[in-house]
């Protein structure tokens, strides 16, 4: 398990080095390309802004009123029995529906519980490890006019469920 946290530490610097080495080797204008790509990053951050404001405010209302704690109190005995931290439930519910909304939930969890808490690490892992099934289904099938989607939704949602369980188990094993 130490190996996994070591991989986490090394992978990004090593990847950057590899990209720059290959880029220089292939004689592409690295710096100019970097700037060009970076401009998209600015756009992306600003396009995320309204998603984050909307979702974080709604969750804050829900949490600060005490309603969230009341609901968590109700369902936590069942979830704790299976080893699932109840705080994570809103994220698990919203993740298959909307990616940007889920990012808002993840952010709120990290901000409330701290990035290095168990909940913070679990939310981070879950955010990165599944995608938004309903969004992808709508966009891809909608774009090419598929009307009968057969078992596609079932497969997507079941796979999400497995990924969420996997995230909980792995984070418990590595950081627990």
């Amino acid at each position, binding site marked *: 398990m130490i190996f*996994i*946290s*070591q*991989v*986490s530490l090394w*992978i990004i610097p090593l990847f950057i080095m*590899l*990209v720059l080495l*290959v880029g220089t*080797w*292939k004689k*592409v204008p690295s710096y100019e*390309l*970097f700037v060009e*790509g*970076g401009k*998209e*990053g600015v756009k992306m*951050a*600003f396009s995320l*802004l309204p998603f*984050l*404001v909307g979702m974080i405010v*709604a969750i*804050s*209302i*829900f949490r*600060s*009123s*005490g309603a969230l704690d009341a609901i968590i109190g109700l369902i936590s005995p069942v979830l704790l029995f299976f080893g699932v931290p109840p705080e994570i439930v809103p994220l698990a*519910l919203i993740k298959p529906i*909307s990616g940007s909304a889920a990012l*808002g939930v993840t*952010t709120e969890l*990290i*901000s409330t519980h701290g*990035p*290095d808490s168990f909940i*913070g690490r679990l939310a*981070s*892992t879950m955010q*990165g*490890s*599944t995608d938004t099934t309903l969004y992808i289904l709508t966009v*891809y*099938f909608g*774009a090419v006019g598929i009307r009968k*989607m*057969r*078992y*596609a939704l*079932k*497969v*997507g949602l079941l*796979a999400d469920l*497995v*990924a969420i369980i*996997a995230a909980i188990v*792995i984070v418990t094993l590595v*950081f627990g």
Partner: protein
Amino acid sequence: MVNLIWAFMAIIGIVYAMFNGTMDEVNKAIFESANEAVTLSIGLISVLVFWLGIMKIAEEAGILRGLAKIFRPIVVKLFPEIPKEHPAIGYILSNITANMFGLGNAATPMGIKAMEQMKQLSGTDTASRSMITFLAINTSSLTLIPTTVIAIRMQYDSLSPTEIVGTTILATIIGTMSAIIIDRIFYYQSIRRK
């Protein structure tokens, strides 16, 4: 769906506050959290700019194409209905590699192109076996480096913002493999019914 969840979180919160005397906290939370969200989004710029810049170099240097070559035999196996040299395979590969590097904006158009090609192969408005396999792989999102999450962790002063990369990759691999297995199970069930 997301509209309902979003609206009801706020509505339930406000109604709950009415009966439990927490209106003061709710009031404070609305303005503080809006402020926090804006600060956060602006803070995300640093990591997103840096990462998308690096990814642009990777793209132009042919690293994505190189990876596509490595994955080609696996993808050909996963989509037995698509002929080996069909353009759909190429689009599927670009979509998967772009997703792996967190280039969602580049991945989506490639994915739609792949769907178009697969629709031409099947010629109906019913989802084909390959389309569903492709969706299953996409919804389980093979990510190598979860940039946005790392950026958010940095904003909240994590001692080790990247410590979740390993757990994310592991969870993603398990998620994608189960997506493929679940897809196969449903496919074989659907032909047995016929």
